[in-house]
């Protein structure tokens, strides 16, 4: 009896232990290492062991790095906004349609998740490059007489990321629309609210958590994305992720790489906290 009582907590403890150990070894320790490395003076890949804040001062004092940080966040915000604006109507349609094709249309909307990020991104490269589909089309209609330089650019990165992250927006907004009782919208209409007013006063505020969630997800993935900026961007459109790689692998300056990584981590956590605090409060 006593043995049974004593042994009972062991199973849940073991169940928690495994994921906890996983998190500890693959997230907490590397993060701690990254944070501490960012405060240590280094000579290339050799840590000298002297504590310093010089790494941050270096990063923030050089326009190239400052611009990369700013660009990263602007791209993140733009991608978040585009994803929400495009996925809301799509999600609304998918949730409310009675079409027999509904399941197929949902699968189609989520299909970007199935293609590898490299394939998807090269797809955009094919469309946007100097001899690509957009330029060919515009030239043949005669709107332009010189091909446009669409690549590499922040815009191309934003387009590529928005496309890749659209399913996340669709999924989170569909989830919040599914949780919305359609009778609530009907009630608003029966009380005299037209379709737009019903949307603004009832649907939008009640699905706001889904909007914030979709935005955060898209934003968080966009600012840490590496492959898409690497393919659709160039030397003039570095983002934090591509810079970190350069520091770590090309310049072999681990201290600066760690500091940049720390800035990415801390500022995105801060932004997530601020936004979710805003999202938690109901609008209305």
């Amino acid at each position, binding site marked *: 009896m006593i043995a049974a009582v004593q042994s009972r907590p062991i199973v849940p403890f073991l169940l928690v232990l495994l994921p906890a150990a996983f998190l500890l070894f693959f997230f907490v320790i590397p993060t701690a290492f990254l944070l501490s490395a960012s405060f240590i003076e280094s000579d290339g890949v050799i840590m000298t062991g002297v504590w310093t804040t010089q790494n941050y001062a270096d990063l923030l004092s050089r326009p190239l790095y400052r611009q990369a940080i700013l660009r990263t966040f602007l791209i993140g915000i733009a991608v978040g906004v585009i994803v929400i604006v495009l996925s809301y109507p799509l999600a609304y349609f998918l949730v409310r349609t009675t079409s027999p094709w509904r399941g197929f249309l949902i699968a189609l909307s989520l299909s970007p998740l199935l293609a590898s990020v490299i394939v998807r991104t090269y797809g955009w490269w094919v469309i946007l490059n100097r001899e690509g589909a957009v330029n060919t089309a515009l030239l043949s209609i005669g709107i332009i007489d010189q091909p446009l330089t669409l690549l590499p650019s922040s815009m191309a990165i934003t387009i590529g990321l928005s496309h890749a992250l659209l399913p996340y927006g669709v999924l989170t907004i569909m989830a919040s629309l599914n949780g919305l*009782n359609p*009778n*609530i919208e*009907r*009630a*608003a*209409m*029966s*009380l*005299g*609210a*037209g*379709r737009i*007013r*019903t949307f603004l*006063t*009832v649907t939008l*505020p*009640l699905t706001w958590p889904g909007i914030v969630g979709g935005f955060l997800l898209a934003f968080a993935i966009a600012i840490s994305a590496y492959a898409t900026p690497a393919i659709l961007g160039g030397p003039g459109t570095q983002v934090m992720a591509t810079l970190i790689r350069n520091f770590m692998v090309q310049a072999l300056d681990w201290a600066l790489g760690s500091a940049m990584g720390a800035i990415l981590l801390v500022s995105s956590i801060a932004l997530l906290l601020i936004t979710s605090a805003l999202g938690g409060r*109901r*609008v*209305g």
Partner: protein
Amino acid sequence: MADPALRLQALVKRFGAHAAVDGVDLAVALGEFVTLLGPSGCGKTTTLNLIAGFLAPDSGFIALNGRLVQDLPPFKRDLGMVFQDYALFPHMSVADNVAFGLKMRGVSREETATRVAEALSLVKLDGFDARRPNQLSGGQRQRVALARALVIRPAMLLLDEPLSNLDLKLREEMRGEISALQRRLGIATVFVTHDQDEALTMSDRIAVMSEGRIEQIGTPAEIYERPATRFVASFIGSINIVPAKVAEVPVNGFARLETPAGPAIAHVGSASSGRSVMLTIRPERLKLAEAGGAPAGAVAWSARVVRVVYTGARLEVQLRLADGSEAVAEATNDGRTSLGEGQGIVAWFRPEDAWIIAGA
């Protein structure tokens, strides 16, 4: 004559091949309380949604105060609707919920405040203005939904099973309150329920629905005592149904019948023709007596007591008739009845208490 508040004519709504509403005709007079009564899935909510404009009919007409509205969107129909799940706006206070319809109509701030206070006091929710719907009990939510629908002074009130989510005691209390409120405001109302007691106690008239059609429309007494079909007879209250053959051409509204339980005379009822019919008799109209104790002119059948169920004020006596079929008689518990199981007895009724419906 004034146009009725609502007129439905040959209304049809299909979902795929299935007609959820299959040719409904209904008129609701000004100030009248009409109940759509029927089992779950018979098309009551669909009918209400057609009236409110949330669904478009496949064919037929809907007129509100003489004006055809089937092409108007819901926000132009001027109807107050109470949903089964109340559908309150969870992100708004009680006062904002009630004020919503007035805001949409551009009513001034002062008038809105006055009318919201009036409406909340009408449903006995004074002082609940600042609460959120999730801070209210089921009964209070129901009252907010009612206040929100009434405050816009709609042409008509639509209620979709508003009491079905409340517990029994509250349900009976709200029945009385909704009826009283409806009478006081004199607002034409369509009330939907699957609960026969609600329908019988609250309505001016009841429309009994089955499989997308209205089986019968009438006052509660007509529906209960003069059922038009077997469905209506057995859906409302309990009833004894005995197959019968018409033995003679009916005279003076009464027909002589042959039944397996014995010969009978009964009201011709709703059976317009045919030899095979159903004799129906309510348990409370089926009386019990000692052998030879039935009054003159009554139809008397010999029977045997199977079981006596004690329900307090009443005794439900289960009987076996001469042909072996079962019947139920309900007697008031006067404290002097002694019935033993297996006891032979006479079950009798007056011809005017038995009602004939078409046979099936």
